[in-house]
């Protein structure tokens, strides 16, 4: 009983701390946006060019899949801060000195994560009900069919996401930016593709296969010439509605339900694993010295014993040799600040980071031209993700805002120096492909490279300034890299290689976007400096 109370107290305090932050409002707005997108047909379940009638079951499945696919992907980044927050606020040290067990702590944080994600699912469930009312395609309201997908699919998927976030936070290697990148692959391969890869129907944590199998049976019966396509997609053109296609939902058997709820059990197992490796706020217990937590902002507090004035005589005079710094020695030298920002960005990276970067650079010169400009260049820039993600966010992450922002001419000097350092890193790491593009294809080939090289640091800077965290950029760049350079999606491919005849069009788009992002970053930093 005492343990349960401790778990609930941890969960409640953490949840309240989150919901009273401005960012939670943004989280809910994101859920509302997803609900709106589903309700207005911008996100749809499609079978080729077709879809069925919006029955209660269809809407429940659609919105539940929106939850499992989108909320779990983005929600991970939202909730992956529960333990780190206790490090930052030093509440963790207080908790570590209590009899609270690691399991209770991890379970409490897991429940808080789950509550946050669950509140987003709750909003989407309400959106689903409203959707059926306003869509009016099927007047028969079946509450069980509409809500079952949320209970049996969406919530277990959220539990899994909440648990993985806790696990990542307890693993030294994954608690930082590397974990943010890794999540995308865990989500896409383990979450979406596991059932496909393994060939096991029920290995389907996000529930996509579960709904697809059931709906495709009806699709074959109702859509002439149906070839087995199934997609949850952002619809870019109107979808044809097959009026005879009235999917009435999955007939949930006890086995089905157990298989779905088993993912909650897996989530609990992951939390127990997290508790096992959790260092209980003792960074010296980390196995890898370089991964010990040393990046916690310092708060100077506490006091020492008062010393009598007579001790002062024992301390020698101190300022006799302090050289004056007259105003005439002030300079606007931008170069030194740029080099300082570059050093700040690169300092602390391990030797193997430089080794891989050098390897990717050499590969750009040595690989066949198309390989060099596509996957190798894309991967070389992806390799910079953790360097760029600190841009704009470093000041709030390490608590140096007050010192920096009280210096003169910071906005016109420090921010551009930081941006230029990011561009320089992009240029150096992509130099091989850039040079070959320039000499092989001329300006036409070099322009997309240049657009990508200035776009990515600008995106990092804008997101960093406004979010105060590297997570949004780390998540977004990983997704862009996967969809763009790896899967050759025109427009999304920031190397420009997949854009074909539209290359110059996209170059212009990227240049404009870069300009907008830089302005957004400058406005954000200016705002921070005015309002603290």
């Amino acid at each position, binding site marked *: 009983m005492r343990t349960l109370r401790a778990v609930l107290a941890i969960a409640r305090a953490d949840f309240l701390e989150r919901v009273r932050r401005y960012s939670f409002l943004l989280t809910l707005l994101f859920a509302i946006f997803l609900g709106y997108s589903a309700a207005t047909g911008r996100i749809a379940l499609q079978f080729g060019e077709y879809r069925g009638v919006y029955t209660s079951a269809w809407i429940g499945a659609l919105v539940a899949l929106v939850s499992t696919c989108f909320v779990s992907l983005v929600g991970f980044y939202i909730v992956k801060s529960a333990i780190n927050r206790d490090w930052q606020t030093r509440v963790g040290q207080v908790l570590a000195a209590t009899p609270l067990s690691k399991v209770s702590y991890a379970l409490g944080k897991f429940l808080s994560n789950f509550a946050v994600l669950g509140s987003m699912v709750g909003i989407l469930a309400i959106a689903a009900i409203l959707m059926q009312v306003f869509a009016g395609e099927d007047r028969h309201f079946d509450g069980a069919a509409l809500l079952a997908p949320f209970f049996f699919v969406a919530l277990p998927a959220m539990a899994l996401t909440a648990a993985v976030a806790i696990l990542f936070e307890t693993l030294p290697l994954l608690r930082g930016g590397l974990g943010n990148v890794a999540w995308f692959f865990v989500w896409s391969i383990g979450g979406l593709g596991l059932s496909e890869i393994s060939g096991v129907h029920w290995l389907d944590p996000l529930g996509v296969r579960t709904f697809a199998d059931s709906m495709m049976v009806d699709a074959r019966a109702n859509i002439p010439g149906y070839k087995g396509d199934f997609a949850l997609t952002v619809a870019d053109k109107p979808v044809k509605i097959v009026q005879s296609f009235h999917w009435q939902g999955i007939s949930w058997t006890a086995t089905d339900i157990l298989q779905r709820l088993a993912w909650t059990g897996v989530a609990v197992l992951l939390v127990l694993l997290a508790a096992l490796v959790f260092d209980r706020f003792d960074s010296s217990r980390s196995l890898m010295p370089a991964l010990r937590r*040393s*990046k916690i*902002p*310092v*708060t*100077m*507090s*506490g*006091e*020492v*014993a*008062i*010393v009598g*004035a007579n*001790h*002062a005589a*024992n*301390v020698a005079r*101190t*300022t006799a*040799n*302090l*050289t*004056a*710094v*007259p*105003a005439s*020695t*002030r*300079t*606007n*030298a931008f170069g*030194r*600040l740029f*080099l*300082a920002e570059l*050093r*700040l960005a690169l*300092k*602390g990276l391990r030797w193997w980071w430089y080794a891989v970067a050098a390897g990717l650079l050499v590969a750009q010169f040595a690989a066949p031209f198309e390989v060099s400009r596509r996957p190798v260049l894309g991967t070389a820039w992806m390799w910079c993700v953790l360097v760029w993600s600190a841009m704009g966010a*470093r000041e709030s992450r*390490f*608590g*140096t*805002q*007050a*010192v*920096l*922002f*009280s*210096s*003169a*001419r*910071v906005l016109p*000097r*420090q921010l551009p120096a930081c941006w230029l350092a990011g561009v320089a890193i992009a240029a150096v790491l992509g130099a091989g492909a850039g040079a070959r593009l320039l000499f092989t294809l001329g300006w036409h080939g070099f322009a997309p490279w240049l657009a990508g090289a200035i776009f990515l640091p600008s995106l990092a800077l804008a997101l960093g300034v406004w979010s105060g965290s590297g997570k949004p950029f780390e998540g977004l760049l990983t997704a862009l890299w996967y969809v763009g350079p790896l899967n050759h999606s025109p427009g999304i491919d920031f190397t420009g290689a997949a854009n074909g005849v539209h290359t110059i069009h996209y170059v212009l788009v990227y240049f404009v976007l870069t300009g907008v992002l830089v302005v957004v970053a400058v406005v954000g930093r200016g705002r921070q*400096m*005015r*309002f*603290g």
Partner: protein
Amino acid sequence: MQLTVERLSKSYGRAVRALSNVDFTLGPGVLGLLGPNGAGKSTLMRILATITRPSAGKVLWNGSDIAHGPDALREVLGYLPQDFGVYPNLNAVEFLEYLAAVKGIAAAPARKRIGELLEIVNLTDVAKRPLGGYSGGMRQRVGIAQALLNDPQLLIVDEPTAGLDPEERVRFRNLLSELSGERIVILSTHIVSDIEAVATSIAILARGQLLAHGSPESLLASVAGKVWEIIVASVDLPALRQKYLISSTAHRSDGVHVRIVAEVAPAGGARQLEPSLEDAYLAALSRQRGSSDGPAKGGITTTASETTAA
């Protein structure tokens, strides 16, 4: 060189008024800013350091409003915030070089100054170690060094001695004393002995209001003849606490020696004592509580303006 604060107020939302109509003018010297937790000291410091804008009123640096042109002040400002961070992968020299570049100090004088400052704050031996491995006191000393990097005319230090060991604390006090001759230093703390050692003027802030601003002597004069010591049995102490403003107690073989601040001598053979700044500070706070919550203890009822003319 003059810093003028005119009717300065700062509110956070409608509920919290952190500063209310604060006025003062400063010339070269050390201003000790005293106040209990939540008095508004850090808010005032942040406004003076151009980090936060006031809700009302203004701050003039040599006659110019810093809200309209903060860079004029920032050029000559050294600021050590109460809570500040460092970049853990940089060492002390690299961190200070970075800030010197941000502050626009030319390379050669910056290098020289950094070396001297690291010596002054006693970090020369560890200057090449990453800051992530520094103790809290060592990082605080890096903070002190960065505040002095540009040879500031206005030096604002918020709880600077927190985390320092006794020797470093005395060293820092001496440093402040030596620096104060040709610049304005504002030192915020709630440790009266720090102020006692270095301040040429003292301001007391509580609940966002300036209770007193003047020389240490004028502050001491406000409680002259009002500090007493009586010796009581331990069991009588709680009753005494209810009745009087007690500055300190010390258990001795003959009973508890109680230091009391009161307009008139407490009954029971009270002996008059020389007032300390701590007595004056507590009396000022007590007067404010008395004016807002009802009569103050021990008859300390005079207003701030009566006792603290600058």
